[in-house]
């Protein structure tokens, strides 16, 4: 497992696309945090740090492109088959893959946090920042479990890239539409829709961001539980499907 992770990680660090993404994450967040006050679509602003939360959408957006491009080489070059021949179990391969893309996401999050903290003129309490980052990391991991599930179970590299990028686009539009539908429904339905929005990783981004209505926000503990449930379900389901997959 450790060898597999090291191999993935060293290959990942050589990816120019990832390095460019990290630099961009820092630059865009810094610019957005220091110039966010000019955007009149944002509301519920308590400090400059809130502007950076809108820019945090770039992390799942980037990962939806990076993950298929990084992992498509696995099937293309027969690397997965070689790993199996070397005696690595499918479970080890699955977890090492997930851990490596999680490491990429953590690097992106670190760049985002640096941009946000340096760009913000006013900051909330340290506890608020820590909770926000914890929630961000968890919903991004939840999204990565979906991306890894698709990458390791669909062999066609073009289809994987299209599915994963479109999954990001559509989950973004879906949460915006669900938020719009919420305004037209009663209290009971509102709670169900709020849970649905928060179950979608991009939906949790929306509920944290200054673009959201207050009605879609759930308590931090519920959001963390929803992310944990999605992570567990996707890992269990993904591993089951991957174990049964016919790898040529």
């Amino acid at each position, binding site marked *: 497992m450790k060898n597999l992770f090291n191999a993935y990680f060293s290959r990942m660090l050589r990816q120019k696309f990832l390095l460019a993404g990290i630099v961009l994450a820092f630059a865009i967040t810094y610019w957005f945090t220091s110039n966010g006050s000019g955007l009149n679509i944002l509301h519920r602003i308590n400090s400059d740090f809130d502007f950076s939360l809108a820019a945090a959408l770039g992390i799942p957006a980037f990962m939806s492109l990076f993950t298929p491009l990084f992992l498509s080489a696995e099937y293309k070059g027969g690397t997965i088959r070689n790993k199996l021949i070397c005696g690595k179990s499918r479970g080890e391969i699955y977890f090492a893959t997930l851990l490596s893309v999680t490491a990429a996401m953590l690097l992106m999050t670190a760049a985002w946090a640096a941009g946000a903290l340096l760009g913000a003129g006013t900051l909330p309490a340290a506890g608020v920042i820590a909770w926000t980052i914890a929630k961000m990391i968890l919903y991004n991991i939840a999204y990565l479990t979906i991306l890894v599930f698709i990458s390791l179970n669909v062999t066609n590299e*073009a289809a994987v890239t*299209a599915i994963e*990028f*479109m999954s990001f*686009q*559509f989950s973004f539009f879906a949460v915006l539409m669900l938020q719009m539908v919420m305004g*037209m429904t009663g209290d009971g339905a509102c709670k169900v829709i709020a849970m649905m929005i928060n179950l979608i990783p991009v939906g949790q981004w929306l509920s944290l961001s200054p673009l959201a209505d207050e009605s879609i926000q759930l308590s931090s503990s519920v959001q963390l539980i929803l992310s944990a449930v999605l992570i567990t379900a996707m890992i269990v389901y993904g591993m089951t499907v991957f174990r049964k997959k016919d790898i040529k």
Partner: protein
Amino acid sequence: MINLLSVGYSKLFKNLAFRVCLIIMAALPMFLTAVSVSKTAPGSGPLNGIYNTGMIFIGLLIGAFVSVYISQDHSEKTLNNKIMAGYSRAVIYLADFIVTVSGALMMQLMCILASSLIAVPARGMYTEPFADAVKQQFILFCVVAVYTALVLLICTVINSKAHAVAVSLMAVMVMLIAGISVYDMTVRKGEAPAASTEVTTEDKVVKTLYNVLPQSQMYAVMEEHIPADAAKMICYDAAAIAVMTAAGIVIFKKKDIK
């Protein structure tokens, strides 16, 4: 050419990405129309132009379906077979363009049909003149053809299929955001009180981009039904399609196909 087209169409209808895109192009407009119906009062009259609402996503769907469809040709080595059968590269490229544009047109028709399936029974038949509706659809078809030509060009230029799909989707997304931004800037400029009569270079650039970018054309059709600069927009689209297709054919002719 006819043989290539017939093979292309049979492959198109079997293509899973195309079928999924058709389903999305039916489901999404139906949802948006249902929301509009529930937001308007029952006696408020027909929802003219509602059938164009679902079109805002068509660029992304074209990006996905065209790049997956074209990559299939490369991965299954059908492209090599076509060349060995004696078809010229220009003919192969044009056949691919015609087939993919037809696929995109089917998605556009699906959007109209799906919206009307909800809007007409709920609020009655549209009252706008039929000729206007046809003109709107023609402008939107030009927009769709521009997106298709762009994605086909990207898939020809980039060898790695995963990268071609990623770049196509990114390019479409950038054009989508640029179009929306330019449309928004133009509308805000028009709404500004006591707009100055002096036309600056920035205004000219924004106005040109407004007429050139496919997404701003789409928004103009949705809001104004038949935009004031419709003829200009169609000319720009035709020029963009011609340039991108010509460039695609030139690159495809020089490409080393293994």
